[in-house]
């Protein structure tokens, strides 16, 4: 395999860009669904009624994190088969964990006396949750979201393996045809996308956090 600059430029300018949108979808859709599941789940698990399950669920989450991303897709292959939708589902499952974990950690990190005071002043359980617990744990939740985003951006490349499209198609084409320029270009784009997402979320985070709590 040898590197050709013109072929690399060609890969960067023409071969890869058509896959950008696909790849962004492969990241944002699972991320959105994962957040929509993991965040409420984290909230539920910190409510008194369900708190006793927190330990068990946490350990499942932690164990889930240790399974390599490729294994997640491979594991679900028998049930979901091939294609775009199975890839989305596998990616969603993989993105769940950091968000749920950070939601739990964030909510657990809200000082007891602050919740106690809020309740003692006569805030309803819902008001304490929405006006005190969620705002105070949001920085931690968003950092989980960032972890998930970066993780999913990378893992989504594997979707191409099961026919799920995305930037992975460029990379695997490069691998199959011994074209290092394609591999490099695809990887570069994924890196840029991950970085952009991270920045975007950081910006969002800084907008909603009072200056002293960053």
């Amino acid at each position, binding site marked *: 395999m040898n590197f050709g600059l013109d072929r690399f430029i060609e890969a960067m300018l023409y071969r890869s860009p058509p896959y950008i949108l696909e790849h962004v979808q492969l990241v944002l859709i699972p991320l959105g669904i994962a957040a929509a599941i993991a965040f409420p789940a984290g909230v539920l698990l910190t409510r008194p009624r369900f708190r006793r399950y927190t330990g068990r669920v946490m350990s499942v989450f932690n164990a889930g994190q240790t399974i390599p991303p490729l294994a997640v897709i491979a594991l679900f292959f028998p049930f979901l088969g091939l294609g775009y939708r199975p890839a989305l589902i596998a990616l969603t499952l993989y993105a769940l964990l950091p968000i749920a974990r950070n939601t739990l950690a964030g909510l657990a990190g809200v000082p007891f006396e602050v919740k106690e*005071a809020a309740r003692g002043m006569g805030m309803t359980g819902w008001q304490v949750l929405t006006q005190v617990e969620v705002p105070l744990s949001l920085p931690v939740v968003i950092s989980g979201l960032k972890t998930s985003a970066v993780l999913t951006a990378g893992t989504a490349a594997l979707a191409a393996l099961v026919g799920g499209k995305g930037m992975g198609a460029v990379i695997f084409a490069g691998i199959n045809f011994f074209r290092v320029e394609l591999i490099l270009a695809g990887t570069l784009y994924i890196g840029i996308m991950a970085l952009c997402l991270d920045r975007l979320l950081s910006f969002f985070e800084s907008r909603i956090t009072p200056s002293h709590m960053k």
Partner: protein
Amino acid sequence: MIQLERVKKVFPNTAVPAVDELSFTVEQGNVCVFVGPSGCGKTTIIRMINRLVEPTSGSIFIDGENILQVDSDRLRRRIGYVIQQVGLLPHRTIEQNVGLVPRLLNWPEDRIARRVAELLEMVGLDPAEAAQKYPYQLSGGQMQRAGVARALAADPPIMLMDEPFGAVDPILRGRLQDEFLRLQREVQKTICFVTHDINEALKMGDYIVVLNAGKLVQKGTPMELLSSPANDFVKALIGDDRGVKLLDLTRAESLVADGSIKSPAVKDCSCFIDALQPVKMALEQMMKHDTDSVGIRRGDEVIGALTWAEIKKHIHRISGDEG
């Protein structure tokens, strides 16, 4: 009025009850001070009264109504609560923190603004300066005072104050106590006040409840506690200067005997105190002027004299052998 009837709290996984079969009543307009060593259950009692903790057994009544019959959020909005660890909301300004309960009660904004300014002023914080700050920008003592202001905000008829002045310096604490007592004479709230400082208890309380290990040891007025402590625990709590503390609570006029205006001591007096001042002041004056008698004045009129011998006799009479 707050009534506790055989209230007991055993926390899960603990062997001994945090509060054990406690019964007492705090009458409307009274300040009841809970005093006792760390871990004796003071905070737990307070938290049971506003239903942050449910008693294991026994019942609590507020104005005759069992608190279990009242919606807990609504109950808490009419009970001011100063929590021991302050617990200001870190993501809200002091203005928002103090205005929390009025906002929950849907007061109009201009009324909230006026109330917040008034309260900050009262607890010795400059409204112009402090209102827009976040809690982390205040000192511990300032945060604590903001916590007191927050509890007072909606003018609740009942206050639960868990060591409200614990973090402020002695001078300011004295001022806040005086301000509190002055205000209390006007507004006549029903107040449960927690402290582990016996001097604060003696100063603030209409009644004092002495607790140890979750049990009531003695309940009485400051005078009753000082003159007849129930046991060695209460004696130790009060300290070795029981006699002096008694004299601090005794007004000079109460020791001036009817005929003492004619006693020869009055003529010799080189110094005077006001009739309403504590007898302790008389002692102070005696030491300062190196004399055995102090004249007692009411306004401009001399009404009698107190002598060292009389004070000594009084202490012996009221506290038995000691003094």
